[in-house]
């Protein structure tokens, strides 16, 4: 047993730290740290900085422009970025589609799309969920029918996707579409890349309970998609879909986010007062904080145990379901305590205060503005990326054999 990272890994951590100290714009870290919303330009700027250093595509092999990191290095990098309040990398192109193209794409697709992901030419979004296909993802109905005209062979796509995160910024969407309606449901699905500027694509905002526009519905009406945009074989898209989901889950514990959020909570609890003493001296509140801190300490080790188990390469299997469940529960509990710490000041909500350019004074403590909104927004953590109920099903089936 040795819980320490190797000297090489520690050296890598220092390298990441000094990179972040030099390259992460203070303005951006401030926004992330204070719970303000990032603009499209902010994301693009940060990803360009990472790309210049060759650290954007941490899951890609070196030959395609990845850094060739081990699982431990990836973990260290993601952790350090989170505690430094770096913007999260918008995962759809670089962490989801990239690995799928590298494994299942043809040479032309890899040559064309991968560099465009790295240099930010394309902003990708994910076309998986549909109104009738949430937890039951294989129930997708959006149809793609092969046709031929004077411009060549193509698919005609009709249907609807939903919960499309940041789809309002995207110019490209990767979709699961149904190409065979006769086959068993997992067997008639294909993986298609769709240009969102094509006629017939319409993006409509979904406003969430915190009043924000983060997710969208995407409608397809007779959308023409060239056959070159099919990834892998027709009707074999489910393989790509599942492969992509394993990547969606690699950082699913979000330990770095929890560490950063807990540090912030402790600052808040030291400043907020009850009976003239800091809130962290209040026995009930201190107990709540201690519970989640202990849970997080345990999770840090569970997380690296899973990583160590796959250190030889590849992505974790059903074990990542444990990380997803408990990792998201911890994040939710920390944001719940942050809200609780605000007392009556959790109620005021000036939406504009969370966006750039707000000049007004805060209502109550500085940290109060995003507290309740983040708590409500974080309810999504136990729903998306395979709901925590689905993760428990996976554990029951894959690990317990029930």
């Amino acid at each position, binding site marked *: 047993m040795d819980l320490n990272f190797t000297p090489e890994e520690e050296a890598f951590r220092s390298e990441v730290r000094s990179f972040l100290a030099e390259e992460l714009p203070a303005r951006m870290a401030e926004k992330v740290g204070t719970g303000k919303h990032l603009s499209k330009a902010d994301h693009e700027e940060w990803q360009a900085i990472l790309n210049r250093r060759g650290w954007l595509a941490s899951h890609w092999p070196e030959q395609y422009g990845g850094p060739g990191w081990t699982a431990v290095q990836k973990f260290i990098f993601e952790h350090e970025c989170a505690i430094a309040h770096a913007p999260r990398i918008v995962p759809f192109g670089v962490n989801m589609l990239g690995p799928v193209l590298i494994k299942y794409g043809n040479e032309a697709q890899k040559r064309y799309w991968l560099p465009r992901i790295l240099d930010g030419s394309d902003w990708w979004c994910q076309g998986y969920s549909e109104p009738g296909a*949430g*937890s039951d993802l294989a129930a997708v109905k959006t149809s793609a029918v092969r046709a031929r005209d004077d411009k060549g062979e193509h698919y005609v796509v009709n249907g609807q996707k939903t919960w499309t995160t940041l789809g309002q910024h995207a110019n490209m969407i990767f979709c699961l579409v149904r190409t065979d309606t006769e086959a068993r449901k997992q067997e008639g699905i294909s993986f298609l890349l769709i240009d969102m500027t094509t006629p017939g694509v319409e993006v409509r905002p979904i*406003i969430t309970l915190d009043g924000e526009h983060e997710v969208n519905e995407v409608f397809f009406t007779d959308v023409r998609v060239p056959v070159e945009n099919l990834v892998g074989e027709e009707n074999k898209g489910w393989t790509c879909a599942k492969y992509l989901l394993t990547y969606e889950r690699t950082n699913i514990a979000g330990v770095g986010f929890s560490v950063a959020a807990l540090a912030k909570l402790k600052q808040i609890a030291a400043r907020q007062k009850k009976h*003239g003493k800091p809130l962290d001296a209040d026995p009930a509140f201190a107990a709540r904080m201690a519970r989640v801190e202990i849970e997080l300490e345990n999770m840090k080790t569970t997380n690296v145990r899973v990583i160590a188990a796959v250190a030889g390469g590849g992505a974790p299997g059903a074990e990542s379901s444990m990380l997803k469940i408990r990792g998201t529960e911890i994040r939710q509990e920390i944001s719940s305590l942050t809200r609780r710490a*605000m007392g009556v000041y959790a109620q005021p909500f000036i939406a504009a205060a969370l966006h750039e350019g707000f000049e007004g004074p805060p209502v109550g403590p500085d940290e109060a503005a995003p507290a309740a909104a983040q708590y409500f927004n974080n309810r999504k953590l136990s*729903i998306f990326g395979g709901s925590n*109920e689905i993760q428990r099903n996976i554990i029951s089936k894959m690990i317990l054999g029930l």
Partner: protein
Amino acid sequence: MNFQHTDDRRMLADTLDRFIRDKYPFATRDRIAKSPQGFSREIWQELAELGVIGALFSEADGGFGGEGFDIAVVFESLGRGLVVEPLLCAVLAGRAIAAAESGAQKQWIEKIIAGESIAAFAHDEADAHYTLAHVQTRAKQEGSDWVLSGAKAVVQHGESADVFVVSARNSGTVEDEAGISLFLVPADAQGLAVRGYPTIDGGRAAELTLQDVKLPANALLGAPGAGFATIENAVGAGIVALCAEALGAMDEAKKATLEYLQTRKQFGMFIGSFQALQHRMANMLLEIEQARSAVINAAAALSAERVVRERALSAAKFSIGRIGTLVAEESIQMHGGIGMTWELPLAHYAKRLIMIDHQLGDEDHHLQRYIELGRSLRQ
């Protein structure tokens, strides 16, 4: 034993439920909650005409109710409709004014009951963290006048109030129960600044700053320095109101979630057929029934002697805080993504349930208070 409400109360609740169903569907509520005023004067007036506000006051104060169960039936309905109009203000400020001895001051209650005036309760302060005796706003006597200075936090409907019931300290240190006085401060008083803003659960509140606000002697409610008992009494009625409101909201959240489990299909079947969700739904039902009992206990204890009353109130607010959070979180989770959307009323019930825990003391505060009150019983 009889757990039926009286006919009068049942009739009032039915009338109010019907009014909400007809005049206050979710789309209307959403529009009103987002409006610059954060409530509708028209609806407020209609609620007054229906007798909803009068039911919150005793006959001696010009109403026709005022008991714990009167407050409970009204607020349970209001909770079902997510009503944002200033009825809690009426309970808190109205109860405080009712404790006054002078007839001139009591005239405000008449205006509140008639829907003509809005009185807001300006008691909370930054750093109080729900401690009821935490008052730093100062009251100084100058001749026969009073001069108030300080700040009040998150005053519900502060921008729309015609008058404020303001707590201020004329003696003692910050958490002393003795030395707190209550004042009637008109909205147009010199030196009073009101900064309004929306709240996350819909509606509006405000920060109040008082800078040398000069008030005549007759602005004082009750005896100087003896305001704490009045505050506790008003807040006690407010706690019954909030707990009952939460109960109404929980019933609606449960109903919406149950309907969803019975209509949403995944993997070729209704998701309500999955045992994992059935057990959670059963648990939610059980917890809500416990919450209902807590509300009944609190409403029944509202007229009891102090320690018995306050323990039942803290027990209820603790239960509602805990169960309200559970119902909010479980309802969203069982709905999945759709439960996170503004479009769905459920999300707004969830927000209200969570925010009720941020009004008049949260779960932790009331658990501690319950323990302390219990200690005083044994002494």
